[in-house]
């Protein structure tokens, strides 16, 4: 039984610590001169951004390099094989992705702007690249959750903490309610921790439920920096790192990583 899917070519890839990605087509893959990466458009929207990479022979295999300097807009990029320039494209299935260079990425210091790329496998088995592009970033190193509060340890990349720094919790939706928390700054000007009190947050959430997105304002008047966990090999951590839910007088509170690996707090139920 040979189905279309089995005929679809596979591509593996290797990423370096600098973000350079080498795509690799095994021997026997269909003819093709180029790889095409395209930013997956929102439903119903036309495709806008593509990158085309030349395939070079490497022994019996062929490879194409996405240079560390090539800027990928934040989003999900699908990978295709082009038989020849301008020809019809063929989606690539995911082969081996050597992402070991990304493990422990949070221990390195990232320059601004942060361009983070994580090759991943889509739910249906295709190769894609998750990209984040941020002027600055607050990497969540860990969270301690108690029944009454949560304490987040984080580290700034591409910014440093100044006088007047605050942590901002913004309620999603119209009205944009914002609460602030004082961070506790480390000596290095980059590391910080902050505690969110569940009782206050539950009281501050309108009846029903809400989601609070967490950011850091590193100095008075400075732009907000979203807190998240981007600097390792996990493209989707929502179901991998799951924090406990605290039940607070009939209200359930739970920090979680969003589909974009940003940190938010979900509040559910009537206070």
């Amino acid at each position, binding site marked *: *039984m*040979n*189905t279309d*899917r*089995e*005929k679809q070519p*596979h591509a*593996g890839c290797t990423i370096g610590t600098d973000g350079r990605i080498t795509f690799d087509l095994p021997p026997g893959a269909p003819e093709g001169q180029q790889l095409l990466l395209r930013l997956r458009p929102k439903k119903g929207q036309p495709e806008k951004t593509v990158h085309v990479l030349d395939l070079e022979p490497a022994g019996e295999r062929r490879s194409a390099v996405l240079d560390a300097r090539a800027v990928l807009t934040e989003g999900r990029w699908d990978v295709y094989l082009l038989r020849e320039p301008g020809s019809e494209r063929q989606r690539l299935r*995911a*082969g*081996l*992705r*050597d*992402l*070991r260079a990304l*493990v*422990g990425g949070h*221990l390195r210091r990232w320059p601004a702007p942060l361009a983070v790329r994580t090759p991943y496998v889509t739910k249906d088995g295709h190769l894609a690249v998750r990209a984040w592009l941020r002027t600055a970033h607050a990497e969540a190193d*860990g*969270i*301690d*959750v108690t029944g009454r509060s949560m304490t987040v340890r984080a580290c700034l990349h591409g910014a440093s903490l100044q006088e007047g720094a605050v942590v901002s919790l913004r309620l999603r939706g119209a009205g944009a309610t914002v609460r602030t928390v004082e961070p506790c700054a480390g000596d290095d000007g980059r590391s910080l921790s902050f505690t969110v009190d569940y009782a206050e947050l539950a009281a501050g959430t309108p009846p029903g439920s809400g989601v609070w997105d967490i950011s850091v304002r590193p100095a008075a008047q400075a732009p907000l920096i979203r807190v998240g966990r981007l600097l390792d*090999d*996990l493209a989707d951590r929502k*179901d*991998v*790192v*799951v*924090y*406990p839910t605290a039940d607070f007088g009939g209200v359930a509170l739970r920090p979680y990583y969003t589909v974009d690996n940003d940190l938010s707090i979900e509040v559910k139920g009537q206070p």
Partner: protein
Amino acid sequence: MKISFLIHSAYAIGGTITTTFNLARALAARHEVEIVSVLRNREHPMLSLDPRVSLRSLVDLRQEKEHPSHLRPARVFPRAEYRYREYSELTDRRIGEWLAATDADVVIGTRPGLNVHLALQAPRHVARIGQEHLTLDRHPPRLRSALRRAYRRLDTLTTVTEADAAAYRRKMHMPGVRVEALPNSVPDPVLPPSDGTAKVIVAAGRLVPVKRYDLLIEAFALIAADCPDWQLRIYGKGEEHDRLRRLVTDLGLYDRVLLMGAVTLMEAEWVKGSIAVAASDSEAFGMTIVEAMSCGLPVVSTDCPHGPGEIIEDGVDGRLVPVGDRDALGAALREAVRDDEWRLRAGRAARKNARRFAPGPVVTQAERLLAEAVSARRADRPVLRERPRVSRVLAGQGFAIRDTAHSAAGGVLRVLRRRG
């Protein structure tokens, strides 16, 4: 040779599927190979199959789940088999029909119930190889009795460990049948090995009670404070998932123990780690142990029956600790984390020692076993010819027993033929 594998399902993830796909791929270089999946529940296999290997299924659950015959219990597939509930009158019939019509020279069964089908229903000219990926000592007595009757009608029975082969020779009377350990083969790794520096411990397997991920998580909890920055990643899915998630939460290890879900290409995940770990109470073979070793990871494992002890050399390429002993498992992990020099050295040894499970030697052995069974069938004689004096006695017993088995099966076969 035309070689057919008969497998429960080729559409999931697990050791039997992986090793069957690996062996099929290696045999396809010189033979015509097909995999026959009794059940099918999705369009494509989860694991990738060599395009030279053909794949077919007998019962497609997407359309036939409610088939009247599928709602009636199986009669050929033994009742005491672990997966009995997934089999039915329909699977009995489809497997029987497929076997009756097969043009394969040799059919390889991949689990006890399918080996029974093979023993009872394969045409006379087709060589019958039963593979046991589980272990005799773990089979319930009723299953052992069913197998004792049926397995005499196989040509060859392969186990995955020497210990299990010895158990079959000692406890099952199977005159004329060759019993031999054929270890699972693991393909040669493609990626460079782990450099042993990442602070990641990796485990992989179905999330089922026998794998004892609960014990592993508790053992990791013992060392979490002394081994800052180290992470435990558990790959796989299964019925234990929610319980393990609660355990991770209760121990406050949500940032340190990651339940990664099922992954089809584990090689890329092993090389992200520096230590592999297995906490099973029982492990028929331990494919993941060999996979991890071939990627350059030393493996800390329980010394459970039967696989790990035949794969790992304690202290050299990994560690063997007593079964169910959380403290011992934690202590061995702590030493592996702390002793960088040992970890790197053991990782190199692991990579080297895993080579005996490379497809090359295993496939050569498999080809020899298959060719031997096929030529015995062609000559209409048993694979193993006993010494003359003994053979008269054994042969007599063998026939008597064969008749018994046949009459037991005869009723079923008659029923099947009527339904045709």
